[in-house]
């Protein structure tokens, strides 16, 4: 066991993994309560278009992915606000279109890029010291914003119309929550990958909700599941030589099924 932490890459992986796990768990509270899980899928898949663009242009793909994700998140928010087209319809379109755009760019680049698979399915070995710094920085920003707006976000999730009437800036909170979601997705991609990141934004919250009928207990449960799934998943994937992203998500799913026994 001890040898795991003697490798630099494993130290970085576990550090980034635990932070991402906890960060996603906090956000999963609102993803589950405000029913944003499909939005999470839409935003995370749009990262693929951004990553491919970064590869083609020779820019750090995380940056292009970040811009792509935030843009798509705000677009989804705009459509939601206007309310003329159904939200899931919009997401279904953006989600496919940005993936198609990414695949087109990969085709244009005419080289088979292994790194691209790292972005799709997560590559814990590829986490650099600067990646860890970015995870830490984004976590501080996102968690500070959530701390400031926590009770407003809770009211917004519970009853948007009433929150608006009582003077809570619901329009702003709509965009804020989606932007935070985009930021968290981008920094989580290297750990679990584009395809699987949305799971980390749903499962901890869903399990927490099974455990407790109060949001405080739900948050505690989500954090516990997020922590155990990421650390446990990374250790198991190292010991058994399994892909880290899928091990984390499957372990989280196992915790979710265990939480169902509670009720």
């Amino acid at each position, binding site marked *: 066991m001890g040898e795991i932490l003697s490798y630099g890459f494993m130290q970085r992986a576990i550090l980034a993994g635990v932070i991402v796990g906890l960060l996603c768990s906090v956000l999963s509270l609102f993803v589950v*309560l405000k*029913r944003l899980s499909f939005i999470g899928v839409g935003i995370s898949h749009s990262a693929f278009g951004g990553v491919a663009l970064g590869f083609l242009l020779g820019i750090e793909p995380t940056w292009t992915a970040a811009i792509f994700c935030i843009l798509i998140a705000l677009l989804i928010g705009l459509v939601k606000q206007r309310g003329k087209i159904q939200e899931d319809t919009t997401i279904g379109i953006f989600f496919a279109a940005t993936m198609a755009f990414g695949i087109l760019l990969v085709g244009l680049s005419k080289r088979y890029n292994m790194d691209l698979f790292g972005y799709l399915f997560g590559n814990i070995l590829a986490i650099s010291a600067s990646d860890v710094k970015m995870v830490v920085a984004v976590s501080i920003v996102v968690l500070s914003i959530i*701390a*400031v*707006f926590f*009770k*407003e976000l*809770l*009211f917004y*999730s*519970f*009853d*948007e*119309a*009433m*929150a*608006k*009437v*009582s*003077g*809570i800036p619901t329009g702003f909170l709509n965009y804020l929550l989606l932007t935070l979601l985009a930021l968290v997705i981008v920094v989580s991609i290297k750990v679990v990958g584009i395809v699987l990141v949305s799971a980390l934004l749903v499962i901890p919250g869903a399990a927490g*909700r099974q455990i*407790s*009928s*109060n*949001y405080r*207990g*739900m948050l505690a449960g989500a954090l516990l599941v997020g922590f155990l799934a990421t650390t446990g998943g990374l250790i198991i994937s190292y010991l058994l030589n399994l892909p880290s992203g899928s091990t984390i998500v499957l372990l989280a799913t196992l915790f979710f099924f265990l939480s169902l026994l509670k009720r």
Partner: protein
Amino acid sequence: MENILQIENLRVLINGNLVLDGINLEMKEASFLALIGPNGGGKTTLLKAILGLVQPLSGKIRVFGLKPSQVNKKMAGIIGYVSQSPLFDPDFPVSAFDVVLMGNYRKIGLGHRANKTDRQRALESLELVGMESLANRPIGQMSGGQQQRVFIARSLITRPKLLILDEPTTGVDALSQDQFYRLLKELQTKLSLSVILVSHDIGLVPNYCDQVACLNRYLFLHGKPTEVLHSEALREAYGCEVDFLFHGKMPHRVVDQHNG
């Protein structure tokens, strides 16, 4: 006594339809107004206009002497609102106490947590509606009637002078409805509240209010309850006969609800 609500010649257009036209309405302090009328008759729109959530095409609205858009800024919390929507999510993980506290979030302010005074106020609001013993119960595990009481408590936490309720008894059984209206009347007297109650329940509501207004794009009348129930105007507003079944002292409506 000054009018707490003054509406003159109000017209409201929603998606190209004139939903409200030529509305004139006055409300005195501590009065109880029931607003009835068919579905799609503009009841909710009128409430939204008073709350400043809908912009009128023309006409004047003054609430406590201010434009609706100003009321929220200068006199935040002076209007309490209870919407018709049942729980968006019946399993939402908050207790009755948490729900009541939400009504005070704006006052508590960004980045601040509820302090002892805020918590005390939330408890007092729950006491007003007789729900203090269920303060810690998850909202989803309460009956429809209990939930509505909690929502009233939430609207009372800012100590409003005007309470607006939009079909608050949707999804509440008949017995609880009666108790609910009685509680409302009690609160109105106790806290000298002005109340605007939108209801389909034209059988029960007139027993509790001072005035009834019938709305079907036009505000049909604005008089004492006994006048309304026997009035032609009610028939006109609903577009058909409204029959009542009398047993005991309580008249009950027996026709089905219909779209106007």
